[in-house]
């Protein structure tokens, strides 16, 4: 089955896909921005400051999702002895890291009008900061080591250690007294957020997901060309 997804076979698709993904991203983002900044109502308590949620929450969700995917891919790379998994994981990391930073910075900006402070060592903020450090370590490992086998081992180790932090981020608001409110959106039960705020949030999440797909495809293609460049040197 993995042969179907071999880089040599899918490059034709991955090299053409970015332009369509970019177009779709711009369309969805435009709709999302209009919904988030103009159409969606203000909150009865937070007033217009609540609009920061439309960039903060999707960024946090996607950075968590990407890190979880990277861990799964790295483990699969080891189990199935397939380098392509590591390549996909490596290509996902930059967008995951940037989304993590966006979540931290926009969270800090949101904190000032709602909590009266730019930063607090609250359980969720701290665990998100730790996740950013894991992302940074992962990216640094790929930069500083040349030997593939060593990079695979160390980067997988980092993702496995880092994934322990993901449920901590998710449940920190339930386990400890934090400044963050408990989750408003539940997949299994009824969400406490009104649809007039839920839809813009989902549209912005879709836009962010498309952006991470775009960056992933561009990065993956770059990595494939890098490998082929090395191949040409050996001819």
């Amino acid at each position, binding site marked *: 089955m993995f042969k179907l997804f071999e880089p040599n076979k899918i490059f034709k698709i991955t090299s053409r896909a970015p332009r369509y993904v970019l177009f779709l991203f711009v369309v969805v983002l435009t709709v999302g921005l209009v919904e988030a900044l103009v159409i969606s109502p203000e909150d009865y308590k937070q007033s217009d400051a609540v609009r920061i949620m439309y960039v903060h929450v999707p960024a946090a969700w996607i950075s968590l999702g990407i890190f979880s995917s990277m861990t799964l891919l790295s483990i699969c790379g080891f189990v199935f002895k397939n380098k392509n998994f590591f390549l996909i994981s490596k290509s996902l990391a930059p967008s995951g890291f940037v989304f993590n930073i966006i979540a931290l910075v926009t969270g800090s900006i949101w904190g000032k009008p709602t909590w009266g402070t730019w930063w607090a060592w609250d359980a969720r903020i701290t665990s998100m900061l730790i996740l950013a450090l894991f992302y940074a370590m992962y990216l640094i490992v790929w930069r500083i080591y040349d030997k593939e086998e060593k990079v695979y081992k160390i980067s997988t180790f980092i993702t496995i250690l880092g994934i322990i932090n993901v449920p901590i981020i998710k449940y920190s608001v339930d386990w400890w007294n934090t400044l963050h409110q408990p989750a408003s959106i539940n997949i299994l039960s009824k969400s406490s957020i009104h649809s007039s705020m839920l839809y813009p949030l989902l549209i912005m999440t879709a836009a962010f997901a498309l952006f991470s797909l775009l960056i992933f495809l561009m990065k993956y293609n770059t990595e494939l060309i890098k490998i082929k460049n090395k191949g*040409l040197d050996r*001819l």
Partner: protein
Amino acid sequence: MINELLFMNGYAAYVLSAFSFTLFSFLGLYLVTKMQFVKEQKKFVAKFGSLTSEQANSAKSQRINKEILSSATNN
């Protein structure tokens, strides 16, 4: 309505700076990734150009190499 959007009940500085930071981060990441891609593509084309005809034919037997060359000429 424009005033409402620009003032946002006094929260505009926070809201617009959060959105601006996000969009500039997107733009920055996109440009950096694009630059890296173009750089590798150019390197590939240059290396391919320096191959002997025999080496070039051997390299062209791999479909992905042809795809990289054609995508480089399209960009």
